[in-house]
Structures are given as structure tokens and as C-alpha cells.
């Protein structure tokens, strides 16, 4: 799932302070699950904005909506009738949603209400961690189901480096929390699977064309095209 975190209300407020009708548009997809851009967060942000503007004596109308998803035209279509009555939209969807909304309603200023962070998992309530970098060329089958591209800070393919200590990545000292060394995890896992032999083989070069290095990506599948 795509993980995001709410932007500071001040930043959002400063973007829309000169408009008189603003729509706060949430998304019931990933960003709702990670409690950054769902209906609840829409309510919280909209009330914070109303309080702020009323305190400074500014009249600004703020409406709320939450779409099933903002990465599908079908759901964005729901805004077609009402969008013209707003001067601007704050989208609490991920970066994809914000952009798709922008593409669909070309005239409207759209501002992001969250910072889109990564593809990850809910480890426990309020703790989300990265698991995938969408490199476009999954190698989890080689590495015991643990991704070195994502979980090694240097995306090494033949790790661990010399900075791995007690299962922690060398960057732990700097980021102020324990970051697991991806290669320590891979090693433990391969050992458990009895597949340590895999580790002995030096890797090939990674083909990064399917990653961001290859330019904006697209999947076209003839089999599911109408």
C-alpha cells in the first residue's frame, strides 16, 4: 500500500488563503488506511482551516468530500458537477491522485495535502514501514523474500557492507532509530531456508530501466485492453 503523511496545516493554509471557496478532497484508498488522507483526516483538516480563518476574520468556505479513489477516472468523475463552484482543491490523496485530479479538471488549482512517502506495510498501529521501491523487476525470489533494494540503505546486491552492526544498518546512528540491516535479515532468512549457497554467487548488474531511471513508466496490457 502507498503510505503518506499529512502535511502541516500551516503549509496548506498558506496555499489557499487567497481563495474564497475551497474543497478538501480525501481518498478512501491507501491514504485512508494509513490515516493521512481519508474521510477522518479530511474532517480534521477542514475544521482546523475553518477555525484558523474565522480567528483571523477571513470568510472562506470550506467543503469536504471523500472519493472511493482518486487514481481512477470513474471516481474522480463524481466531482464533475460541483467542481466549478470551487476556486481550489486540496487533495489528500497520494501524489498520483493529486495529479490525476489535476489532469481531469485542468482549470482548477489543486494542492497536495499529504506527503506521499513509500510503498509499505502497517507494522503496528501508527507505525508504517517501507517494503518496496517498485523497481519493476522483482528479485524477492532470489533473496529469501526480503528486498535488498528497499531494505539496504545502499541497495547492495552482495551485502552486507562493513557497517552492519548487531543487525542494524550503519545509518541507525544518524537517523536516531534502529534501522534493520536488510542484508542481515536476508542472511538469517537464507540460513533458515537452507539456501545460503545463493549468497555465494556474485550478482549480475541490476537492470534499472524498469525503475525510475528508465523514465516515466507505463504498463500497457493488450490482454485487458477493451
Amino acid at each position, binding site marked *: 500500500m502507498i503510505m503518506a503523511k499529512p502535511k502541516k496545516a500551516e503549509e496548506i493554509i498558506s496555499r489557499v488563503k487567497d481563495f474564497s471557496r475551497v474543497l478538501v478532497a480525501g481518498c478512501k484508498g491507501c491514504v485512508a488506511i494509513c490515516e493521512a488522507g481519508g474521510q477522518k483526516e479530511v474532517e480534521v483538516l477542514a475544521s482546523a482551516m475553518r477555525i484558523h480563518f474565522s480567528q483571523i476574520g477571513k470568510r472562506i468556505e470550506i467543503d469536504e468530500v471523500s472519493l472511493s479513489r482518486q487514481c481512477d477516472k470513474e471516481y474522480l468523475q463524481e466531482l464533475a458537477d460541483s467542481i466549478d463552484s470551487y476556486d481550489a482543491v486540496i487533495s489528500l490523496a497520494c501524489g498520483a491522485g493529486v495529479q490525476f485530479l489535476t489532469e481531469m479538471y485542468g482549470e482548477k488549482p489543486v494542492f497536495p495535502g499529504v506527503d506521499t512517502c513509500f510503498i509499505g506495510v502497517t507494522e503496528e498501529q501508527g507505525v508504517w514501514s517501507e517494503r518496496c521501491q517498485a523497481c519493476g523487476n522483482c528479485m524477492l525470489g532470489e533473496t529469501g523474500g526480503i528486498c535488498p533494494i528497499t531494505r539496504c540503505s545502499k541497495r547492495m546486491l*552482495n551485502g*552486507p*557492507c*562493513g557497517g552492519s552492526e548487531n543487525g542494524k544498518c550503519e545509518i541507525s546512528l544518524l537517523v536516531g532509530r534502529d534501522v534493520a540491516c536488510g542484508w*542481515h535479515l536476508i542472511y538469517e532468512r537464507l540460513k533458515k531456508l537452507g539456501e545460503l549457497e545463493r549468497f555465494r554467487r*556474485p550478482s549480475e548488474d541490476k537492470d534499472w530501466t524498469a525503475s525510475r531511471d528508465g523514465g516515466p513508466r507505463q504498463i500497457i496490457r493488450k490482454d485487458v485492453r477493451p
Partner: protein
Amino acid sequence: MSATTPSRLEKIIAAGHLAVTSECGPPRNGDPEVVSRKAELLRNHVDAINVTDNQTAVVRQCSLASCIRIKLLGLEPVLQMVTRDRNRIAIQSDLLGATSFGVHNILCLTGDHQRFGDHPTSANVFDMDSTRLIQTVRMMRDEGRLLGGHQMEEGRPQMFIGAAENPFADPFEIRVLRLAKKVAAGAQFIQTQCIYNMEKFKLWMKQVRDEGLHEKVAVLAGITPIKTVGMAKYMKNKVPGIDVPEAVIKRIAGVPKENQAEEGIKLCLEQIEELKEEEGIMGFHIMAIEWEEKVPEIVERAGLFPRPAVNGSE
């Protein structure tokens, strides 16, 4: 092991001498004198001089330019290269440039994460890692091919290929496997992380021998003299992957401040003496961090002076 490149370091090792290397950190400015000065200090006392590559991710004069400078002084550089800052295009290009100046030694590294350095907000590259870099150099040298497939008719790198290894990093069990992988990739010499925990180092060396790796790769033991007890504590607590046992700290702390540097030198001389006896140790890599002027003294007191002459080295 018989020498196959013009590398003086390789010849020294092939002739069965204990090799001595040291390193020189370029300055954080464009001063042309610093590297020359540091290299001159080492002229008669080491076989080759490593030049660090933006070590700890702090911007410094570039390793390649400094290696060329050292080469022009008639000395033998070891080009340290990290994959943190270069993709495979830049890596191969730098290797060809180094080749054109007759740089015959390379130390292949992945590099410290950039968050350690003076540009923590920069992007990193990591198109490949150290193991893959080793393979790349070997392919360019032995097959005359670039990664993209281009065949070089002339001007192949002629490099003695090295790598670093840290016997003190975790998980310990994987360290020798990882060395084996680097050797399989083409590493011919290894410079280890600086050694303070002798017991652990010897355990590692035993595993190296059990795997037969000591016959395939020359292990140069990393030695760094401790200047003050503060430095020892800093390395223990702040530098990932360095193992400074409590006993070492106690020993340095146990002498008055003005004698701590000498105590540190004594400690490293004892280590060298002990390691000379260790099967598979083919030399020493003496890294006197910002204390390069001490290296000649250490080499002399360790009985590693004068350095042997080898035939045919440039």
C-alpha cells in the same frame, strides 16, 4: 601468485615480501600541495599509497586527480573508488582515465552512506556495489570489454584489484562468505578494517584459511595507531563497524595524556609483530588518520624498513 600487472604492490606480494601500504586523505579544497606533501612523507616507507575517495561522504579533492599527482611524483597510488557517487558510466570512464595515467591498483568500495557526510541531503547512486565493481574492473582488464559490450582493442586497464573487508561487522558468520564472493569476483588483495580486537581477527583469519582463501587473495592487515583515548572512544561509539575492546581503551587511558600517543604506537607495533606470524597475512595497511607523519616511524620500528626493490616495477 605471480604478478600479472605492472603493479609494484602486486610484485612485492608475488615475491613473498610483506607489503606495506598506507593512505592519504586529500584536502577539502583545491590546494595542490597537500597530497604531494603527504605522499612525499611516505615515499621510502611504503609500497603503495591509497587515496581515499570522499571518505565518510565528505567532499574532498578527487581520488583520481590525487592518484595522478602521486603517480607523477614517481610513487605508486592505489585508487580508492566508491560506487556511492558514480553510476556504471562514470565508474568505467574514471577507470579508463586512471588507466591512461598508468594507475595500476584499485580498491573497490561501496562507500559510507552519504548521510554520514557533509551533504546528507544529497542523492546517492549505488548503481552497483563493491563486488560488482570488482567484477567490472576484472572484465575490463581480462576480457577488454566494457559492461555495455564494447570491445577495447587497446588501452585495457592493467590493475591489481583490491577490496576492503571488515571482519568486525555483523553478522560475523557471513564475513568469510562475503570475502569468498569478492575473491570469486576477482579481488586479489584485501585491506582490512583497522584491527583492535585481535582475538576476533584471528578467528576470522582461521575461517579465511579454512576456506582456502589465503591462497587466492593477499590479506593486508589494517593498522591504525590510536593517538588519544578520546579517539579510541570515538571510534568505539561513533564509527559503525569498528571494534575497540574495553581492554584497549583501558590501556591507553592508563597512561598520562602526554604518553598516550606513544602507547598507541606501541600497541600497533605489537599488533604488527603478532600478525607477522599469522599465516595468510601478506602485509600491512597502515592508516594513520591525519597522522601520516607517523607512518615512517611505525614502518621502521616494525622492522619493515627498508622496503624491498622489485624488478620491472615502474
